[in-house]
């Protein structure tokens, strides 16, 4: 099964009933798959006039009660940012798949990159938090898409799944699990008297229940600063409460949200920190280093945002050197690692930005071995 198909099937498994998108390489297989499947499962597929409209329709459908998602790549992801901000502000669950390709701008549309890491986190104006996941195998494409819907529904937040082109287009052995085998979470809906429903008053778990348009619970959602009832509110105390709320619900559940995998890190002197396709090159490089008697291990970041600071700090403190291979020029994750481990840490960057994949040899080279 292909990575893109696995994400599409993961979405359906999680209960997605609405897809709106605009074709763009290298994500179009997801739209194509959904255009067929949605008809048969009672869902809706819409090809919109652009990516701005796509994410808007997804948010609208989510408020009407659908588990909804879209899929795109760099240029389209850029177009979605403003409306994605509404999903943050209005606390609307939705999932966006961004199959990363080499930029800037139109760039190399069929080539892989990991250049959107900072855009995932900071792409929108204002001050907000989202969740971003990055799979490295076809199986992870499936399971992390299910997870993305679970997080979106549970925390009323947009979740972005951001593989690179290699993983999106790669095919591996994979059979989806049977229904019920993997946990699927639905959003919490209100239960009190409809007249008293406040769509932005959080429960102790940091998240407010969300009704659907058409239910007995009538409600307002707004891109403007709003009070607990969703209607405009310009009071500074209210604004501070709202902005903090958007961050706090993520912070509160940080340990549940941050997903990492480790490979032979118990005694690792050399720690490779990787995500997406570069995880695989890192693991191959670590195996080669082990053969040569060097204690190397890999920390795979599946959750890119919020950043795995605790995990990096713990494993990084033990290592003599940390290698961060990534398909971008600036070392977007390497910078975060540096922030956690401090300026004195031996952090070696391996960067490719020519549209080509990082190989295990590229990584071994920084070890000068």
């Amino acid at each position, binding site marked *: 099964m292909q990575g893109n198909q696995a994400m599409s099937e993961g979405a359906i498994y999680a209960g997605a009933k609405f897809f709106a998108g605009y074709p763009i*390489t290298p994500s179009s297989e997801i739209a194509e798959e959904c255009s067929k499947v949605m008809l048969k499962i009672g869902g809706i597929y819409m090809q919109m006039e652009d990516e701005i409209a796509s994410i808007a329709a997804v948010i609208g459908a989510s408020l009407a009660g659908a588990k909804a998602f879209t899929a795109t790549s760099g240029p389209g992801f850029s177009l979605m940012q403003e409306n994605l901000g509404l999903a943050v502000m209005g606390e609307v669950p939705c999932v966006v798949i961004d199959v990363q390709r080499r930029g800037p701008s139109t760039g*190399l*549309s*069929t*080539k892989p990159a990991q250049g959107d890491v900072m855009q995932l986190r900071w792409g929108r104006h204002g001050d907000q938090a989202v969740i971003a996941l990055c799979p490295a195998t076809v199986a992870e494409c499936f399971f992390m898409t299910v997870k993305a819907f679970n997080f979106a529904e549970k925390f009323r937040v947009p979740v972005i799944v951001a593989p690179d082109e*290699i993983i999106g*287009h*790669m*095919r*591996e*052995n994979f059979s989806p699990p049977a229904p019920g085998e993997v946990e699927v979470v639905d959003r919490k809906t209100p239960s009190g008297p409809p007249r008293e429903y406040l769509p932005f008053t959080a429960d102790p778990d940091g998240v407010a229940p969300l009704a659907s348009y058409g239910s007995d619970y009538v409600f307002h959602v707004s891109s403007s600063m709003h009070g607990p009832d969703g209607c405009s509110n310009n009071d500074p105390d209210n604004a501070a409460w709202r902005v903090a709320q958007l961050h706090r619900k993520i912070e509160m559940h940080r340990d549940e949200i941050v997903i990492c995998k480790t490979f032979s890190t118990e005694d690792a002197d050399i720690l490779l920190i990787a995500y997406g*396709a570069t995880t*695989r*090159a890192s*693991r*191959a490089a670590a*195996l080669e280093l082990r053969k040569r008697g060097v204690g190397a291990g890999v920390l795979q970041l599946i959750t890119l945002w919020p950043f795995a600071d605790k995990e990096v700090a713990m494993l990084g403190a033990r290592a003599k050197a940390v290698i961060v291979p990534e398909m971008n020029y600036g070392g977007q994750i390497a910078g975060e690692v540096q922030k956690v481990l401090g300026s004195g840490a031996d952090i070696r960057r391996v960067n490719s930005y020519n549209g080509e*994949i990082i*190989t*295990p040899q590229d990584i071994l080279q920084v070890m000068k071995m």
Partner: protein
Amino acid sequence: MKIKNNEKRYEVILAGSGGQGLVLSGIMLGEAAVLEGRVVVQTQSYGIASRGGLSLAEVIIDREEIVYQQVQTPDIILTLTEEALEKFAPYADKGIAIFYDTTLAKVRTGEYLTGYPFTQIASDLGNVGSVNILSLGAMITALPMVKTESLAQVIRKRFRGQAQEMNLAMLQAGADLIRKGERTWEPS
């Protein structure tokens, strides 16, 4: 024709031009290996156009987990254009078997270089578009990465009616090229 066969793991590159169906034959080779219970990774690299430009499909078939997804030490390479052959011909000097299409590329000689007019044969057999299946049939006969029957099974699953018949015939024709061709297979 010389091919090394390590029987445990196969790394394959299929190279040509967009539109020749090489990504599809990579997928089909992978699916055949999955039918035989193997671990498979298939990747691709291509340009922006659906037609033309260098297009690559890579397939790794193993009995264990495939950590790194790209081909590093190919066992066999198929090239269907001059551009692709030019890129990969030097691999023959390293003892890597190269199958190439003499219809579209200049003839080269060498121990590990095997040329057949795949495109011409496919055209003679009635469908130039099936050159991908024809050449794949030849490759898996020369280097038995998967059984011909597994690939036939994949063809029967993917195609219906006339297209199925045509592709099964192409698979057979490719296999016959090796079994009955002028050159005979020499195990290393």
